[in-house]
């Protein structure tokens, strides 16, 4: 096992990422209704994927700058980093919008929030 800077950074990033990703999945079972589940699922998994993507970008930067691996094809690692970043941006834009669509659809379908202390939406219907 080689404990260089890239290894340490990647282990930290992947551990944080997995913590939040799994938390999002567990949150689907811990919370009582669809709205609170959306909180856990959307926020935690989006945040987790940011860290996973950064881990992959760190790996690509490591392979580009590492003096031992100068013979590698630098272009393919630049491509790896840039495409990972674009995938991350696509997730960051689409996830909150998708969550909003689900919440709005659930409210229109008549799913009432459980354990709610206040529901000011009912006055509209």
């Amino acid at each position, binding site marked *: *096992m*080689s404990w260089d800077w*890239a*290894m340490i950074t*990647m*282990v930290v990033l*992947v551990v944080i*990422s*997995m913590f939040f*990703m*799994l938390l*999002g*999945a*567990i949150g*689907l*079972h811990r919370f009582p209704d*669809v709205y609170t*589940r*959306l909180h856990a*699922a*959307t926020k935690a*998994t*989006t945040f*987790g*994927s940011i860290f*996973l*993507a950064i*881990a*992959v970008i760190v*790996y*690509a930067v*490591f392979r580009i700058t590492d003096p031992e691996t100068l013979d590698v094809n630098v272009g*393919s690692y630049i*491509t*790896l980093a840039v*495409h*990972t970043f*674009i*995938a*991350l941006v*696509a*997730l960051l834009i*689409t*996830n909150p*919008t*998708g*969550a909003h*669509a*689900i919440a*709005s*659809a*659930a409210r*229109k*379908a*008549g*799913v009432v929030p459980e354990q709610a202390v206040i529901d000011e939406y009912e006055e509209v219907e």
Partner: protein
Amino acid sequence: MSIGHLDVILIGVSLLAFGMLISLLRLFLGPTSPDRVVALDTINTLVVGMMIGLGAFYEQVILIDIAIVYAILSFVTTLFIARYISSRKEKEESQ
């Protein structure tokens, strides 16, 4: 046996598969349709994460290209299903 940089990512990806199983359980259990859609949305995000990780592991950039397209297509699918379930009243609850 030594653990390389890519093995860290592979361990992460296998944990993501575990998270997908947990979300899949909610997809089957979910009492209402929106619950199932939330679970599906979570699985979609996890799949995108897995594709990024596997793309780095196998050094295949095309997997990450597919992840981009998958993220956008799954978003369109979520919107479509949301539009569908908002057009009818939830029946499963009252039963």
